[in-house]
């Protein structure tokens, strides 16, 4: 973004260079802002800050799944007391997951990650070109790109629908949440992942709504979409992890 920023004055203060040493962004004779601070219009800085926040948020999500994973590993190894025979036995029954459907869902989710990445790159390019477009008399022509964001939302919803189908199949095979520890964990992991992914879908719809309804500047949109994209990629990675975990411990 900063590489394309012009050196001459532009109408909109947002278009200033994102790099260090920018003039004070609001009145009162501030001292520049070396260490990172209140540059309200400094989108480069805001993007970095939001990414840092995202990394920390994902750390919390990782700890949630660390909790689940350790519970799963411990629970799988636990013997269960059988009152009738007065002996201990393991009650872990291998669950018969619909692997073919899960594979299709995985492909859909990974595909959505790819479309999301294209959406992220497209908006990053638009944000970089925004200052140039604001120069009077300069036109880059109307761009009509592929609706990557919409595709991602549809693929994401498709994934969640596919997961609901997995639930139905499990129900039909009489694997309920309380059938045994293996099915309990499968439902738990699927549901927790789906809830997190739904959060991503909501973030994407918010990003789209914000751009259409609130006319947010493209740089602000870019931050939302960038964060949503990295979150989305993480969700895809998390899904692969869950699938591999369930494959190993089944």
């Amino acid at each position, binding site marked *: 973004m900063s590489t394309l920023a012009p050196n001459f004055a532009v109408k909109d203060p947002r278009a200033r260079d994102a790099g260090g040493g920018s003039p004070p962004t609001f009145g009162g004779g501030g001292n520049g802002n070396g260490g990172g601070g209140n540059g*309200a219009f400094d989108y480069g800085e805001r993007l970095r800050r939001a990414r840092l926040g995202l990394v*920390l948020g994902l750390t919390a999500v990782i700890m949630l799944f660390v909790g689940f994973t350790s519970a799963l590993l411990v629970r799988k190894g636990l013997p269960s007391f059988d009152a009738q025979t007065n002996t201990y036995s393991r009650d872990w029954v291998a669950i018969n997951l619909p692997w073919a459907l899960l594979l299709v869902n995985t492909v859909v989710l990974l595909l959505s990650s790819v479309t999301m990445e294209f959406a992220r790159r497209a908006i990053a390019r638009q944000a970089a070109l925004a200052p140039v477009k604001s120069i009077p008399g300069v036109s880059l022509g109307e761009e009509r790109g592929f609706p990557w964001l919409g595709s991602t939302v549809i693929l994401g919803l498709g994934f969640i629908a596919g997961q609901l189908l997995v639930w139905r199949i499990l129900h039909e095979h009489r694997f309920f949440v*309380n059938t045994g520890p293996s099915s309990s964990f499968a439902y738990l992991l699927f549901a927790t992942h789906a809830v997190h992914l739904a959060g991503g879908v909501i973030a994407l719809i918010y990003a789209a709504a914000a751009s259409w309804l*609130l006319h947010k500047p493209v740089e602000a949109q870019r931050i939302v979409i960038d964060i949503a994209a990295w979150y989305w990629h993480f969700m895809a990675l998390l899904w692969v992890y869950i699938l591999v975990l369930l494959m190993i411990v089944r």
Partner: protein
Amino acid sequence: MAGRTGGGETIMATSEVVHAHAAPQGFIRKYVFSLDHKVIGIQYFFLALTAVWVGMFLSLLMRIHLIWPNANLPIVGHLQPETYLSLLTMHGTIMVFFVLTTAPQGGFGNYFLPIQIGAPDMAFPVLNMLSFWTTFVAFVLLIAAFFVTGGAPLHGWTGYPPLSAVQSTGPGEGLGADLWITSIAIFCAASLMGALNFITTTLDLRAKGMTLMRMPLTVWSWFITAILGLLAFGVLLSAGILLLMDRNLGTSFFLPVIVVNGQLMGHKGGSPLLWQHLFWFFGHPEVYIAILPGMGVASQVLSSFSRKPIFGYRAMVYAMLAIGFLGFMVWGHHMFMSGMSPYSAFAFSLLTMAIGVPSAIKTFNWLGTLYKGRIRFYTPMLFAIGFVSLFVSGGLSGPFLAQPTLDIPLHDTYFVVGHFHLIMGVAAIFGIFAATYYWFPKMFGRMMNEGLGKAHFWLTFIGTYAIFMPMHYLGMAGHPRRYSQLTEVAYLHPLIPLQTFMTYAAFITIGAQFIFVINLFWSMFKGPKAADNPWDATTVEWTTSTPPPHDNFGGHTPVVNNGPYEYGVPGAARDFVMQTDPKLGATH
């Protein structure tokens, strides 16, 4: 936060400037759903103040019941044993989560972390607001447990299954327990939002010149506390979800084959110990989440009022990091009685005792700061010294309990109750009091009354020792904890006078808290006006006006040139050099 009213890019830009300069004018946006970290900090503070009175009232009921088990009390009537357990559960939960976690971090951390690092606000103001209101919802849900059928849960603040995992184990274990777990889960989400915000703010919003090693120790303590919260609350959340599933969906994560009230439950194969591991993986860092901010405030106040730089600043920082790091590896010491392998117990024991090293470093550094200081005995200083005293008294019983051979007889006795109340409860509360008396002038623009403050300190200091020191003796004499009525147990008869003494001490100590509240509210409106820097302190919050403007520095961004505790500087015009003053000479 900005551009919400939208309508074009220019409006977007204008509204951001407005956020940077002036507070929103509407009552709702200014005081209720405010994005200003200072307002949110005060909201957290008053939430914790409300919670602490509820928690204290419950403890008083328990103390009365312990010595007069047949008394007919107003409001609650004759206490049943299960009601006693409900009081115990709610007292612990309210105090740990909504007081000790909320006030030091959410309250003072929110208010002063951005100002101390020279930032105009938190990194994510909307998230900050959400974090407070989510905490508020969690508190309302928890209190609601008192009023549902069956009342509040019985399972203690640690929520051990099977008691907590089966609906029919007791009167409070139905809806009350579900509300309890839901409240804790929501609190986890709120704390995670807060932690994320604190870490990002500290890393990304520091003013020019505010290097990590120039940050006040308060900022370090909030920062490390946030890291602990980020790593710990997610695990508690996972445990809470599993527990809710066991209770409501018939799963068996924590439940083995179990018979409740003569009825065989449908569970099998789960392990109550699994909950204990997950819970204490959170629970032990939680102890440091409560106490670390107190350490930060004590360091800040001791240095300010001794007119000396803090002794061993770097050692203080590394000690806090070490305590935070080790805190994640010692959860097993809460479970020595669980039948764990002696080898595991040995490892947990060794690691626990290792925490004594950074704790001792901190204690000796505090004493080193006081040594030959020109001490000003204002109320914040008294509470900071009280903090050190309680930290030592409460901390020394830690190495006792860290040894499995000693823990086995002392576990589940009043010795443990005395230990954790002194170190985690009262010491942390003294940190909160020190912070309140120290920062009140900056927050509310007026000074608190010194006479009332000192009276409050001495009554509380002597009172809390009088309540909690005898508990160690009770524990060593074999008095078990958690029982509602032991006045009729023959071998405990000689201990009744001691229990009676502790209850009277509790009356007096709780009475003394009225002095604090009167002082707080009276000073808020009638106290003498405070100067910008009434304590001659050095950190950045004392450079801005009192109370600080909406954007903290009135459109300026401070530039930091000095360390946080430059007191008693030779050759300086005053006996202190503020962080924003011109850089000290190379000779210093």
